[in-house]
């Protein structure tokens, strides 16, 4: 039983990442009808916003420390972050420690801006082109973004730690009445899960309870009629693209402490997120979220040793296997709408 709960928990954080990326993907697809292969790159950019933030916060200048000497006997030069000068050492340390959460605030405008630029600068011209062209051009864009990041940050993963307060693990076993240490779960992954729930909730609330969201939903259902009613639906869809980019970016920012960001992390997630979107049903937001969590949890169940003993290698292929079965038995995915992407 404790194993069971542990696997569900383990699946949640990966599932959250899948759900967040897939949500953005399917949002773009549902509104603009564009298949965006560069969405993984947006996720990666988010992670590198966190990296840049922690680099910026630790910008330092050299100060000669008279009390210590280096091995030649000269006074030692110490790097002192500018933040120490502004806020004093204790406050400066705290700010540096909280670099990742702080970068969330920065990431939102940056990612929305990147999303706007992408939509207005490139994707706008591909509405009328075949899906294959959209896939190809965004695939090319993803390569370009990746290589730019690689040029500036190098090819190696860059460790980006979570704040001190979230280091360590939470002992779930005690809460639920199992032995101590039976179910332990890192705090940051818990944070990630709750964060993703909040973001997903916010996106849904935005679409459901605001006038803007209502117009967007109407546009998703019947773009032409909304346009005839005198609403500039293209503008709103562009904003939705920005929001989708921001969701992917936030997913990346928060994921940075879980997995050190490197330039190709986006591609690794993209493939799986596409599978998630297809399993959930193209253009269906609840489908993407449900499928994201479902596949995340399935994946961690499949990596239980009892399951691997029974079916070796199943943990590597479970997601693809589920996708193939679902695509063949339920062509529209779990919650796909009728008439979307059907030739």
């Amino acid at each position, binding site marked *: 039983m404790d194993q069971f709960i542990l696997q569900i928990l383990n699946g949640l954080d990966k599932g959250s990442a899948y759900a967040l990326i897939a949500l953005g993907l399917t949002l773009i697809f549902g509104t603009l009808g564009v298949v965006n292969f560069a969405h993984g790159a947006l996720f990666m950019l988010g992670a590198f916003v966190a990296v840049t933030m922690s680099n910026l916060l630790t910008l330092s200048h050299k100060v000669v420390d008279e009390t210590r000497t280096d091995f030649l006997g000269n006074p030692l030069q110490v790097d002192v972050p500018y933040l120490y000068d502004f806020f004093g050492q204790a406050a400066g340390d705290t700010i540096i420690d909280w670099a990742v959460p702080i970068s969330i605030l920065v990431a939102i405008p940056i990612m929305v801006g990147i999303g706007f630029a992408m939509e207005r600068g490139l994707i706008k011209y591909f509405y009328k082109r075949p899906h*294959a062209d959209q896939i190809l051009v965004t695939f090319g864009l993803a390569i370009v973004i990746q*290589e730019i990041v690689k040029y500036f940050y190098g090819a190696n993963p860059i460790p980006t730690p979570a704040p001190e307060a979230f280091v360590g693990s939470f002992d779930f076993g005690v809460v639920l009445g199992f032995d101590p240490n039976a179910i332990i779960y890192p705090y940051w992954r818990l944070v990630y899960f709750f964060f993703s729930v909040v973001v997903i909730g916010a996106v849904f609330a935005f679409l459901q309870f605001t006038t803007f969201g209502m117009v967007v939903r109407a546009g998703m259902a019947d773009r032409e009629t909304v346009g005839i009613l005198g609403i500039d639906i293209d503008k709103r869809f562009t904003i939705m693209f920005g929001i989708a980019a921001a969701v992917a970016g936030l997913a990346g920012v928060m994921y940075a402490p879980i997995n050190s960001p490197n330039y190709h992390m986006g*591609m690794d997630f993209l493939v799986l997120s596409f599978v998630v979107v297809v399993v959930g049903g193209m253009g269906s937001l609840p489908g993407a979220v449900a499928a994201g969590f479902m596949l995340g949890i399935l994946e961690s169940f499949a990596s239980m040793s009892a399951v691997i003993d029974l079916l070796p*290698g199943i943990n590597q292929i479970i997601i693809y296997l589920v996708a193939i079965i679902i695509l063949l038995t339920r062509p529209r995915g779990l919650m796909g709408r009728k008439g979307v992407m059907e030739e």
Partner: protein
Amino acid sequence: MLGLEKKDFQLLLIVIGLTLFAPFLLNPFPEGSDLAQFNAGYPDLMQRFVIFGIFAIGFNILFGLTGYLSFGHAAFLGAGSYGAVWMFKLLSMNVLPAIAISVVIAGLFSLLIGYVSLRRSGIYFSILTLAFAQMSFALAYSVLTPITGGETGLQLALSDPRIFGAAQTATGNIPVPALFGLEMRSSFEWNVGAWLFTFNAGYYLAAFFMIIAFYISIRIFRSPFGMMLRAIKSNQTRMSYTGLNARPYTLAAFVISGMYAGLAGGLMASMDPLAGAERMQWTASGEVVLMTILGGAGTLIGPVLGAGMIKYFENIFSKINETILHGWFAFLPDGLEDVVVAMIYPFIGKGWHLTLGIMFMLVVIFLPGGLVQGGQKIGALFSRKKAEETKPNATEPAE
């Protein structure tokens, strides 16, 4: 000739000529000169040109004709490689059975995957092929280690049976792949003045297969079967309304292109007898997509050009480092030199992927027909000018 129209036959002759004289054409700069680093006429790279050319020609039969975008074609190439290496391990070091088995295995494998994947079209087809390829990669990497060698890849060993050949050479080494005694790695080197030309046995074997592959692809493009595939691309719904079941045709195209990939994989293993799971990864599938689109999907020669170009970039362009650049721009004033080098450097050398990505995007945006279409446009520009110039002269006598 050979069942081809005059124009196609000329194209085939050009391709034959280019591949036969590639050792000369790719080595235009004398040894030891500054430009020698741009020489691509060494066996390893020439082999890669033609092998990836075969791969791209095959992919083009599927994507160029039917419009089905497969993101999992590398799986067939990988399967072919494994098949070939197993032939080397079990049978003998002769490359012909290895290549034959790699084509057969890739064909069967693509029949299986194609049968399932082709039930869907559009992006669903892409995702399905991607999922199958990633599954094959993951399995080859982990569970199937006894068959695939797992992380280290499948390699030859001294203890292999090789029932029709020697398990080891007289000196106790692992034998190398050969065609009836002609070793694939053996080369004939010819010094002409300052130039050094290398004629490699493996290259010519691969080139022979590429010419055959190219010929078959021309025949498919011009056949009623090819026309049917094009009809499916332009409007599948209408095809089914006329009472035609499109799936056998698309499946045939899928299997044919899978066999091409298998042939490429078999040749790859024949040149260098090892096979690894990373050949099946989806990035490898993405590479052949890049090659085909860059060169020109749906054109005959485009995929070969695309393959050649990407492999040239990958192997030659990527070697240019900052020092070489500084050498080139040394004639500029110091400050300007640094600025120019700093501006160019991100795009070449290790950053060649960036150039590739940008070029690929430009091609998709502006030239859906790839570089071949670009060439045709430029050609049309000149010929129109020429036609305009010659027109008055041509019409005058008639008046």
